[in-house]
């Protein structure tokens, strides 16, 4: 248990550093789609909600879990959808049509 905790803290720290390095390099041009993309990725919390709901350990847990799945899934679907719609619009000035 103690080792698990320590490993988790290491994982958190390393992911934080990776996040900083990767995201610093993203141009301000794409900051809006970046925010909607990270939002969709963050909705991976849905996996926690799925297990909570499926284990059916108490009625309360199942109700809260189901609501949590709804909220997170709407972020997954909506987040990826709008990010892609935005990115589709970004075009370079190419040769004239």
């Amino acid at each position, binding site marked *: 248990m103690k080792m698990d905790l320590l490993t988790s803290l290491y994982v958190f720290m390393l992911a934080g550093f990776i996040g900083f390095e990767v995201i610093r390099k993203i141009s301000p*041009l794409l900051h809006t789609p970046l925010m909607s993309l990270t939002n969709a990725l963050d909705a991976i919390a849905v996996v926690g909600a799925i297990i909570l709901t499926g284990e059916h350990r108490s009625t309360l847990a199942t109700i809260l879990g189901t609501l949590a799945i709804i909220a997170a899934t709407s972020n997954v679907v*909506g987040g990826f959808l709008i990010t892609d719609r935005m990115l589709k619009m970004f075009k*370079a000035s190419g040769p004239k049509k």
Partner: protein
Amino acid sequence: MTNWLATDTFIEIIYLVATALFILSLIWMRSPTTARRGVRAGELGMALAIGGTLLHHGIVEYRWILIGLVLGSIIGVPLGMVHMTAVPQRTALSHAFGAFCVTLVGTAEFYLRAPAVPRFMMAVLSMEVILGALTFTGSLMAAGKLQEVLPQRPITYKGQNVVNLSLLAVAIGVAGYLVHDSSHVHLFPVMLIIPLVFGVLMIIPIGGADMPTVISLLNSYAGLSAAAMGFVLDSKLLIIAGALDGASGFILSVNMSKAMNRSFTNVLFGAFGQEQITSAAAEAARPVHSATAEEAAAILSAANKVIIVPGYGMAVAQAQHKVRELYDSLSKRGVDVKFAIHPVAGRMPGHMNVLLAEADIPYDKLLDMDEVNGDFPQTDVALVIGANDVTNPAARNDASSPIYGMPILDVDKARTVMVIKRGMSPGFAGIDNPLYYLDKTLMLFGDAKSFVGGLVRELSGGGQN
């Protein structure tokens, strides 16, 4: 179901692949040419992770999971199809949904484990619930303000920060007590409700111009609460996704606060909405030069280099498509047209870029502040559309100005400055803009959309003869 499929190791490997795809997804977001591949990678990672989770051996009941997934998708599709002008409020709303999910799971986990919750577990659980709850109501408030169903005007009162910070301190105190002794199960609702109230109070003093910072900060909180949930559930995938989201929101908040010249602690403690500055400087009607669309079009068509500076006013007037027509007709005459985007122009980071990209303006013409500021001295015309404070030279040279020190677009260094504005009322922050009284500045009074439309007509009509 076959047992070998449902083993934890198999699921963990799927999570590992999903994590790699998430990181790749962000790496590909660096450039508009690879960004859509980034979305695909993210989608694939998500699909794998959800699919893998459904194999989890602990799951005994699939009905509610399926109902949740289906209902969530039904809600998600319209949220993904909103109009581009509604993106800021949609983003705020999705922060609220993410935080809602995290808070609910945290609450359920507490009641499943109580009354004997190990100390570390209780500590991360408290973090998850406190951050999740305040992000939930805070984001709902932000979305309401952006959608204009709530008053956008900041509401401030004496001792606001003291009240807010004390509330937060009480919540943290309760959390500390529960960490010490988790058998006081009845205290948990207190720890849940206080941050919910705090989230509302935190956003009340926020005005529209502060929204880019606030949305970024809420983004960061949402990520951190998800990472805390990862600790509770011992899910590395969730810890990593939460840390990435938290880092992203954090970087954007820092960018935004720098662009508004706010100290970072000012942002961290949520003390936005500085004292309202009433423009005490009596409006001693100083003379300005104004021009008609015809005169402005003549100057524009004679220019070699034009930089357009869009602001929130352009978004409000829905003028981006007219601006595109102006861009076209000037480009056709051989005028070099670029756009200068201030980091806090609009209501969220990158807001202007999305609107202009939607109007089909090539992204390589959209330059951010650092790229473009050196160009203004060689620019014939700087055309400001619906931006104000981000062009205010007082930020550079008037130490008594409330926005002194804020990085601005050096519009005043261009040979001629044109400002499309409804009237002479001061900008959002109530600060007078000396730019408007310069000899080289022409004020173009009118609605952004119709005035730009007028410019386009003049350019395509009587221009050449």
